[in-house]
């Protein structure tokens, strides 16, 4: 079924509470790759913990604590179902994607040795590059890259060229956060497994937009943030296959992750996933994240993809008609449009659009190797989501048409 963004907006206080406007102008929020708005049901799910069942989890013998435990376990099961994980024990709650990537990289450090290769791409986000740089330094493993094609895509062919018998880890975003290209995760995973490498999916930009099925794709680890998929900030997930989690070393040590310890340094770890969740957890966040999973599932990813594709097509056509834009990802697979206005610095475009109530991102979008390939220092990125409308796109296009007048943002 087709998705109705006008109807969905009623669920989002950022629209419904403010009459879809901000500072007196219609709110045209097109920075969904950075973070998404939250529906009321997600906010309510978080508040339910604070208002009705506040107690620390996994340490109370009283019934209130039991309620909090139950809700937290149910949230884990809901996320497992959302990803089609075999077992909810394979779901580790984190504070977000960046945390998850660090947990994966440092967790796998003991498996790496000198000369091993960690395969990334030049379009990865800092959070899927820098933890590996650190781990490579510590293990003397080598970072290698899949070369991008002329469209700056990761192709299967180049990926196959980059995989070697020394590749021990492949870590790639299933959807890139600058150009929005998607990769065929299932195929990539099977090739990684053929050379004996583990495959890590940075799903920060895909979970909100495409169906994730970890059993079908067979990824070893999948990491994402809640806040980009209608969930709260400060919560995310690391999914790991049980056999992989068993090999991973926890990144954080402290309460609730140990079973026993003694003065001589003896330590036994708690079970999986608890051993990866040291300290008091973000219970409210977990409940909100689970609700976001349910909300997205109820809309359905076919409808979401169709809606984003429609908006993106309209935006590309509009930018082309305007005639003053350089588009970097005309054939992208998701609702991301990355461009520049000729002879105007990206940040100046973003400020100008902001003065028209259109909110987009400018810069390098945390993927600091990519500008070499795009041959530009920075770009402007508009990213669409379920609550964006045709009118949003049209306002955006109309504003871009006159972006050469960017100093109007300060004068007039």
């Amino acid at each position: 079924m087709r998705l109705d963004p006008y109807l969905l907006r009623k669920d989002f206080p950022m629209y419904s509470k403010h009459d879809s406007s901000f500072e007196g102008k219609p709110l045209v929020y097109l920075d969904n790759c950075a973070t998404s708005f939250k529906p009321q049901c997600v906010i309510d799910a978080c508040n339910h913990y604070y208002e009705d069942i506040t107690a620390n989890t996994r340490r109370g013998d009283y019934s209130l604590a039991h309620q909090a435990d139950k809700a937290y376990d149910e949230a884990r099961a809901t996320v497992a179902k959302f990803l089609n994980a075999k077992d909810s024990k394979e779901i580790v709650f984190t504070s977000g994607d960046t945390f998850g990537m660090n947990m994966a990289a440092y967790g796998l450090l003991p498996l790496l040795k000198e000369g091993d290769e960690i395969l990334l791409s030049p379009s990865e986000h800092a959070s899927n590059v820098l933890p590996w740089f650190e781990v490579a330094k510590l293990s003397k493993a080598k970072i290698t890259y899949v070369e991008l094609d002329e469209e700056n895509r990761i192709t299967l062919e180049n990926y196959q060229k980059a995989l070697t018998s020394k590749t021990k880890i492949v870590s790639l975003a299933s959807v890139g956060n600058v150009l929005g290209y998607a990769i065929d995760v299932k195929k990539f995973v099977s090739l990684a497994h053929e050379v004996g490498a583990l495959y890590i999916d940075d799903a920060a930009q895909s979970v909100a937009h495409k169906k994730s099925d970890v059993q079908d794709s067979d990824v070893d680890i999948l990491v994402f943030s809640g806040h980009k998929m209608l969930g709260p900030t400060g919560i995310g997930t690391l999914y790991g296959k049980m056999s992989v989690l068993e090999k991973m070393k926890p990144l954080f040590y402290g309460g609730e992750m140990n079973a026993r310890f003694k003065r001589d340094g003896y330590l036994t770890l708690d079970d999986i996933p608890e051993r990866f969740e040291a300290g008091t957890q973000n219970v409210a966040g977990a409940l909100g994240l689970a609700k976001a999973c349910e909300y997205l599932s109820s809309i359905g990813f076919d409808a979401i993809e169709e809606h984003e594709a429609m908006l993106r097509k309209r935006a590309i056509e509009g930018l082309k008609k305007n005639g003053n834009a350089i588009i970097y990802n005309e054939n992208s697979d998701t609702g991301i449009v990355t461009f520049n206005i000729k002879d105007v610095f990206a940040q100046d475009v973003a400020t100008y659009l902001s003065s028209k109530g259109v909110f987009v991102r400018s810069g390098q979008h945390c993927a600091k190797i990519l500008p070499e390939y795009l041959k530009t220092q920075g770009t402007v990125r508009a990213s669409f989501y379920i609550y964006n409308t045709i009118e949003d796109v049209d306002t955006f296009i109309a504003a871009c048409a006159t972006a050469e007048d960017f100093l109007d943002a300060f004068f007039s």
Partner: protein
Amino acid sequence: MPFSLDHQELLREIIVDNYQHPRNFGEVNDDSYVTIHMDSASCIDDIYIQVKMVSDKIEDVKWHGTGCAISMASTSIMSELILGAKKEDALNIMKEFNKMMAGEDFDEEVLGDAICFINVNRQPSRITCANISWRGLQKAFLEEEKKEHV
């Protein structure tokens, strides 16, 4: 009415002119200059400011790099304002500039062309672009002080 409010077009021209024809633009390879690199994770501005102090006077200023129109124009204008100035005078201009950014009363007289940034605080996220050069200068003064003490 203050000059600044009556001459919007002129102020805009100053920005465009300094962006398109940056003053004191260039790079020197000379140890007697303090070099400050202004960049940050959140913006693409990547600007180097080089200052040569002789006792308490700014003997020369050069800068190079890339950035948005606001940061480039700001650096160009600052370089003209402080070239040949005494440190304390440069600090005084900086003080008035910061007041302007904060929307407080300020002394228009000392700001020269930098008055063109009077409206930047309409876009609060861009204040960091307009004052990047001044923040750089402040760092240069600190570096220079460190040098004096060794």
